[in-house]
């Protein structure tokens, strides 16, 4: 690998569990790699495939979706639909040439600060190992 | 306030605990406390009576209390067992039916107004003119089970952490060490029947006293004394460690501070001779 590869990871976190879980990681001062950029959404069910594919197209090295554990959804059902949606998307992304390891869905509760920092750490390491995407974006001049 | 008391020595004073009785007499003389031995006092029945027959266990001590009633003085007791039995009796007798029944048994008319005091309670009110300070002496006070228990009967002192004896010894200049075994049991009346158990229990007490860093154990009960003192040899055999822990009656300690001689206080009667220790501590 060339110099030091700094992966850029986009994280979509549901407001009620995972975003709070990330806050918890903060309040408990649990350090994790700084590569993740967290985008707050009301529910993992709000995250549409379009924004994910878009993130990859823009050059994201990894995308993390985190929501309430199944059954704990603040909106009772949102993450169940999300689960199906991303279960379809994950292998499809791989099929179209984006490594499976670059897309991750995790359930993180508001209390699981430790778990959140672990998830981010392992995900970041995983992607760092994978190296940057052979994204064509480089070759193109973007809008 | 020196006063006059109907003195109830208890059977052991005539034999195994003579030194307790003698030291008591001497000390009280020194302090001007009049002890008038109850004429013809008899045994309180000890643990055996109340183990065997409840009525008997009340009747026997009542007989002595009644005798004291005629002397119209509060009763002074030194033996913890006797104290407990006398107290227990007067406690039971608060019930008129029991009182009537017992009076029938002893064929007397006891009113149950007679006060029962342990010598410790009496001395607690005394100013003791210390002639010989015991300041280098570090002791643990061992009250045994029945002196302070049960409070609702004895009204003696705190059940779990009595202080009265500790107060006394510190008044004498000695250091009383706080420890956890003040009211643990020594095995009591099992001395003859289940000595092995007595040795287990007494061993615990001796070890605790040693760990507390005591030079000796101060006691207020002949039975405790005999179990802790006489059994030390046997305890060593049973548990393999030699305590060499002098066991001293609080009256003997008071005696020392009043300048009485070791002979007067009969230290020679102890199985574990306290004198070397006392000498070393400059008490004698």
């Amino acid at each position: 690998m060339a110099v030091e590869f700094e992966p850029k990871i986009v994280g979509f976190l549901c407001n009620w569990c995972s975003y709070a879980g990330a806050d918890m990681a903060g309040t408990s001062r649990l350090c994790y790699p700084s590569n993740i950029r967290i985008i707050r959404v009301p529910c993992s069910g709000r995250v549409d495939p379009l924004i994910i594919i878009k993130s990859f197209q823009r050059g994201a090295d990894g995308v993390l979706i985190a929501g309430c554990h199944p059954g704990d959804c603040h909106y009772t059902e949102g993450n169940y639909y999300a689960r199906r949606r991303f279960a379809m998307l994950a292998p499809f992304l791989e099929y179209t040439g984006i490594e499976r390891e670059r897309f991750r869905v995790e359930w993180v509760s508001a209390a699981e600060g430790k778990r959140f920092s672990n998830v981010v750490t392992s995900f970041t390491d995983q992607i760092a190992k994978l190296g940057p995407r052979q994204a064509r974006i480089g070759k193109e001049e973007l809008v | 306030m020196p006063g006059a008391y109907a003195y109830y020595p208890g059977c052991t004073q005539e034999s195994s605990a003579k030194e307790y009785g003698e030291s008591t007499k001497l000390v009280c003389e020194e302090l001007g406390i009049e002890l008038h031995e109850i004429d013809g006092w008899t045994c309180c029945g000890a643990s055996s009576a109340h183990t065997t027959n409840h009525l008997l266990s009340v009747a026997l001590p009542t007989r002595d209390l009644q005798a004291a009633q005629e002397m119209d003085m509060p009763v002074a007791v030194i033996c913890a067992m006797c104290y407990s039995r006398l107290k227990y009796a007067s406690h039971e007798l608060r019930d008129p039916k029991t009182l009537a029944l017992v009076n029938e048994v002893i064929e007397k008319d006891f009113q149950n107004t007679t006060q029962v005091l342990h010598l410790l309670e009496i001395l607690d009110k005394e100013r003791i003119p210390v002639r010989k300070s015991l300041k280098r002496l570090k002791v643990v006070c061992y009250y045994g089970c029945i002196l302070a228990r049960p409070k609702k009967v004895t009204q003696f002192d705190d059940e779990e952490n009595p202080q009265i004896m500790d107060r006394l010894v510190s008044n004498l200049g000695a250091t009383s060490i706080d420890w956890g075994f003040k009211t643990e049991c020594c095995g009591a009346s099992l001395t003859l029947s289940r000595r092995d158990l007595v040795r287990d229990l007494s061993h615990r007490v001796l070890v605790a006293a040693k760990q507390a860093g005591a030079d000796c154990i101060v006691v207020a009960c002949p039975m405790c004394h005999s179990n802790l003192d006489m059994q030390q040899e046997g305890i060593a055999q049973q548990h393999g460690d030699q305590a060499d822990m002098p066991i001293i009656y609080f009256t003997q300690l008071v005696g020392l501070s009043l300048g009485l001689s070791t002979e007067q206080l009969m230290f020679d009667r102890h199985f574990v001779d306290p004198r070397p220790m006392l000498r070393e501590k400059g008490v004698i």
Partner: protein
Amino acid sequence: MIEEIQAKARELLEDGTVSCVIGYERASSGVGARPCFAYEPSDVDKFIFDNTCHNDLATYLRGLKGKKTAIVAKPYDSRAVNLLLNEKQIERQDVYIIGVVCVDDYRHKTKHARENASPDVELAIPVIYDVLIGEAVERKSRSEQAFSDVAEIEAKSTAERQEFWEEQFSRCIRCYACRQACPGCYCTECFVEQLDPLWTGIRIAPSENQLWNVIRAFHLAGRCIGCNECERVCPMNIPLSLLNRKLEQQALEMFDFRAGMDAETAPHFATFKKDEHLGIG
């Protein structure tokens, strides 16, 4: 067969059951076929039916919404009809389905030599119809070769796949013929043409092309009925069905769902089971 079709069509127009019958007529070029909208019984004479009749006629039903319409439906067209019914784009009572048994509907359309490529069960008989024309024939299952085309792509390494798709999509000229031919693509305004949010730049660049094709495919996840028109009409010969069929395969494996087989079953993205794992999260 064509006689029967014409007879039925005429009858429907004459007794006023429908105001229009959608069928095929010979293209002006003289070769190939094109959709034909018959409003008069006489129009029906123009009807033809042979294996040049490719268009998915269901695509036109939305346009005639509210008008009683009959359509000549090959098996995959019939699945499209179900899709549109399920998505409330047409009313059952407005549509009269002339189902046509079609032994050869599918393979003759894949321009790419993917002879083995076929769904796990080949459809010969429409899944929904008011009248069935043609001999109801048995077709053997070809499941042992199911999705072998998809398997080929999966066999590649990620890098190879990237190369493969990059090559394919770099050819895309974004003519959107695929979209026009698709019975499932009926959005008033396709995301690709929206200016706000601006999902894709209008200019032709591989990554934009890929975004377009991948998302279009995903918008058809659980909806593509496999008529394969997109691929047939693609002027740049991009094997688009490979995308759709991958998703069709996943839907089958994960949710045992296949679009358009009936009008009622909720598509997999519109429902869920509490205790399914699906290997994520």
